[in-house]
């Protein structure tokens, strides 16, 4: 635990020194809540809760952890970590813990909405859905950043992936609005599958086929583990 604590300690310094990033999240949460309420009323607000859990989980791995590790590679602090008793598990888990502060902050921002809507079922369903999604996003982020030639390009790669997989597929809107045949293709996207699981578990979806998105995420977890075990190297290159 000590090594994980050490990584979390070091990797959380930037959040402590630049807390305005957390304030930015507050405005995004508020802005989207207003937007969804204006267009979709109470149902829109409930859907935005699901979307925030999914986008937070996906962004943590693909964006936050990947970019932070990219900076470690660029600044050579990663070489210091490799040439030490720190194992990849300590390193990744330490980053994961320090990045959790963003999810916790988002949850706190959403809390008034959750209480007013009495949306605890959505919270529990979303937490269940993001568990595999966190694993997938961290494995994908890790696979990208560990093989990238120029770590300074990491934001240019992960930001579009993050936006593309959150804004385009049915994350902020339900998959049931998509024609049935196309829905099966769209739900192959992990963020869309995660959102659909949360919506079906909490009764927000008009579609009832829970096993399909679950199977999609399980396949993504397996593919992510296989892919990352092939590309991630901890020294000895």
């Amino acid at each position, binding site marked *: 635990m*000590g090594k994980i604590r*050490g990584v979390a300690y*070091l990797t959380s310094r930037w959040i402590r020194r630049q807390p305005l990033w957390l304030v930015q999240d507050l405005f995004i949460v508020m802005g989207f809540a207003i937007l969804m309420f204006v267009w979709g009323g109470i149902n829109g607000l409930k859907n935005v809760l699901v979307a925030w859990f999914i986008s937070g989980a996906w962004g943590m791995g693909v964006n936050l952890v990947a970019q932070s590790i990219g900076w470690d590679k660029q*600044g050579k602090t990663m070489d210091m970590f*490799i*040439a030490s*008793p720190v194992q990849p598990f300590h390193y990744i888990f330490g980053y994961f813990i320090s990045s959790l502060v963003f999810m916790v902050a988002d949850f706190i921002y959403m809390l008034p909405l959750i209480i007013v809507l009495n949306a605890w079922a959505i919270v529990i369903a979303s937490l269940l859905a993001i568990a595999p999604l966190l694993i997938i996003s961290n494995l994908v982020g890790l696979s990208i950043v560990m093989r990238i030639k120029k770590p300074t390009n990491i934001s240019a790669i992960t930001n579009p992936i993050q936006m593309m997989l959150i804004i385009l597929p049915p994350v902020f809107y339900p998959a049931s609005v998509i024609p049935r045949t196309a829905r099966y293709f769209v739900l192959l996207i992990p963020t869309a599958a995660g959102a659909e699981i949360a919506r079906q578990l909490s009764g927000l979806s008009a579609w009832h086929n829970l096993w399909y998105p679950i199977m999609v995420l399980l396949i993504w977890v397996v593919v992510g583990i296989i892919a990352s075990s092939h590309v991630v190297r901890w020294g000895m290159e």
Partner: protein
Amino acid sequence: MVVEARHLAKRYSNGVWGVRDVNFLAEKSRITVLLGPNGAGKTTTVGLLSTLLRPTKGNAIIEGYLTVDNVWKVRNLIALCPQDIRVDSNWTPWDAVKGYLLIRGFSGVESMEKSEKYLKLLDLWNIRKTPAIALSGGQRKRIAVAMVLASDAPVVFLDEPSSGLDVEARYIVWKSLREEAKRGKTIILTTHDMKEAEILGDYVVMIGKGKTVAQGTPEELKQQIPYTHKIVIKNARKLPVKEHIDLGDRKIIYASEREEAIELAEKIEAKSIGIEEVTLEDTYLYIVGGVANGKN
């Protein structure tokens, strides 16, 4: 023997050889300097010994463990300060050293005690709460040196730790390294600065074009060339010998002993003439080539 490079060779995936045949022994309680020009293979050698790289040929051995077979045992024994290290701009010196010690398995109390000790040793204590973004490049470099020295790792690698440091900061780093060597650490550092190698090194390994070209104590290395003295001449009008090193308006003539140097100096017509003992730099130029190849 603590660290051994045995016929180490590394070929990168693009086909370029980083090193071709590096051999040396680095013993406990001394500073071993890997000396060579840019591109000689010093950083690759450190990468191979510190488990960042896998050797293509040969063996890297730390405390009797082959790095390729015992990577985690080796990593428990080593600490690395990489070349061009840039500590996170959000870290303060205190954060950096304390966090690195936590990472290496020290308790909270131990890491705080050791942080204080090493921040004082590297003259960073007064700025311990200043984020690195507000510190100079030299101060940032010293943070990285403090991190690895505080780690208690018996083998420490420092890749050009004093490059870019001003004179005062360089002496602070040198003093701290000497103290740590005295405490029993095996320190391996790279440099292309001959003076640094001569002052700091107990043992010097000269690397050129990916191969070990000479090694020994600075004194032993200086004895490997057939000269003991050199005559440094400014604005020469007449030289008594043909063979000299030409540095424009300055020339250097080597002599096998002091008497010969004096004898030669009397025959020279120039604005100024000085006789000096040969340094490690002269040895390096003689053995590795460089300017020596430009002998007239």
